[in-house]
């Protein structure tokens, strides 16, 4: 009863609880929050009480730069919850941040996007952590479904729509028709794997160790998925493993392309498998119109080109690929009241 009352003063939220970033979409307000999924936990002594020191951008700046009593944690791994308590704290913080009203504790209806490959246990963990964070009702939706809705694909129509959502932790490939997922697969390759591949490549070839933040910077600035005529360069600093002192060196986009070969091959093969598995009618729809890339991974330069060359069908990058999932979830949430919840997924 009291929850319902508080619900009147709360907005319905669509949360893209991603490995790298958490986005919150509010109806009529758009994306109200876009912060890294990082929490800094302070613990003064071993076994002592834990408290949240920072969440989001502030916590991300601490990653790899913390003293002994603070730990910067990424509570999501491979698209699912790795640390339940920290995820709950993070969600609580974000839900509160998304509400300007500070008088009543918000009790919104929340839609959370889950990877289509996640298990029942993982889904329940996400549902419960959202409830623990103060949600009145929790709905779950498959990430590729939300991404397709957010990208503006005709998901309700009787045509096949193929969406490739490359997130921080997972890559979801799905074929959607008539509000349902016909085929979906989830591979645990994403932006994090790209970063790891770059770190490993540099350690192997340069004998220099760089941090995750640096690897991410290299990826976003010069990362490329397809050989190009114009070669980009970046100056990087890291610790030389042999000498033990920091050194700076220059990397080119072609080197990064080489470094990313392995994770990219994984994505390409999952797309190929999806096309192979797709029913022929839907496959012809897809080959006519093409597939849509969403998620932060779609921003990797020439990734669409790579998939186009490998598959031979058109590839389109969605508008604002980073926010597609959250926006799509928001639209699905608006649909609850008007229609039924047939786009939602259940445990």
């Amino acid at each position, binding site marked *: 009863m009291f929850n319902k009352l508080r619900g009147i003063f709360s907005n319905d939220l669509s949360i893209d609880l991603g490995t790298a970033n958490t986005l919150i979409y509010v109806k009529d307000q758009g994306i109200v929050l876009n912060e890294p999924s990082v929490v800094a936990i302070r613990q003064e002594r071993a076994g002592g009480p834990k408290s949240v020191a920072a969440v989001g951008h502030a916590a991300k700046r601490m990653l790899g730069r913390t003293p002994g009593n603070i730990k910067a944690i990424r509570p999501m791994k491979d698209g699912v919850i790795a640390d339940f308590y920290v995820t709950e704290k993070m969600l609580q913080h974000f839900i509160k941040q998304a509400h300007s009203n500070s008088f009543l504790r918000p009790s919104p209806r929340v839609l959370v996007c889950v990877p289509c490959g996640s298990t029942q246990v993982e889904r329940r963990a996400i549902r419960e952590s959202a409830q623990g964070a103060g949600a009145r009702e929790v709905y779950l939706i498959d990430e590729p479904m939300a991404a397709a*809705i957010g990208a503006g694909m*005709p998901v*309700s129509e009787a045509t096949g729509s193929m969406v490739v959502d490359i997130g921080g932790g997972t890559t979801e490939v799905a074929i959607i028709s008539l509000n349902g997922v016909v085929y979906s697969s989830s591979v645990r390759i994403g932006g994090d794997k790209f970063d790891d591949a770059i770190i490993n490549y540099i350690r192997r070839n340069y004998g220099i160790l760089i941090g995750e933040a640096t690897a991410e910077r290299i990826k976003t600035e010069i990362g490329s998925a397809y050989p190009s005529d114009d070669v980009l360069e970046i100056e990087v600093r890291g610790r030389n493993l042999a000498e033990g002192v920091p050194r700076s060196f220059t990397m080119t986009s072609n080197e990064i392309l080489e470094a990313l070969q392995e994770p990219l091959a994984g994505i390409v093969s999952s797309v190929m498998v999806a096309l192979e598995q797709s029913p022929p009618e839907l496959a012809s729809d897809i080959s006519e119109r093409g597939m849509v890339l969403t998620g932060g991974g779609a921003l990797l330069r020439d990734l669409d080109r790579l998939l*186009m060359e490998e598959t031979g069908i058109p*590839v389109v990058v969605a508008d604002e690929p980073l926010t597609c999932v959250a926006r799509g979830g928001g639209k699905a949430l608006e*649909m609850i009241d008007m229609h039924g919840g*047939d786009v939602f997924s259940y445990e």
Partner: protein
Amino acid sequence: MTTDKTPTETTEHSAGELLKAAREHRQWSQKEVASQLNLRLSLIENMETDQYEESVLPTFIRGYLRSYARLLKISEQQVLAAYERHHGNQAIEPRAMHSFSNRTEKEATESRFMLLTYLVGAVLLGLLLLWWWQTHWLIGEPPVAESENAGVPHEIVNSVEPEPLTMLAADSQPDPEMHTVLPELPTSLAEQTAPTIFENESTQSSVALLADPPIASSQQLSMRFADDCWIDVVDADGSRVAFGTKRAGYQLQVQGRAPFTVTLGNPSVVEIELDTEPVDMSGFRSGRVAKFSVPLQD
């Protein structure tokens, strides 16, 4: 989604013109572009003439334009801005979603049933209120006898048999139905025994204390009980003026129009007087129910 260029926009190039110019600058044919982008040749032609088929959604058009611009190494933003200029909101609005679940239909049916339930509930409530209003308003009307009998030493109990209350109350004129039971007891005793009278008359419904002035033609029937006895007294108008079991030592006085039809469960323990004139009860046998009228008729 066909849009013809208006003369005002001739100064600004459309998306198709930009792409065509860039392609011709590179000396590529449409076919080459189509094979590079894995798109149909007709789609490339459409893009360059800014005419799109209805079936191609804006999401895809924007994606194709972006890929084409990137292939030609011209600014994506410029091409997309030109496209949006030409097509306005249509360029951004995605098609509306629709649902296949029958939940909404089910809910509509359920809500109709709920509406019906509420309606029935409201009608019942209305009837209840009406009943309450009628009984309250009408019962409040007849004058209460307490003021008149304030000085009278007896407690006046109106003994009425279960008759519709509204009918009883609606009669405002002095009516023969109203009769009082006046225990002929000393003042002090009367007050003490009054509650017991109430208890004794558990079978009777004593509703209100009424004392209508006795009418001239009415006669008084007094009964004195030596032992417990069940009685039923109906006057000439057919209204029941006394009913139920009376205890030993109880005195009953009722008024009504003679002749009274009296039924006694145990006639030998009752002494009856009609207007202070004793009625001969010797003719009735003890232990048998007696039904007779007062004054006695042969």
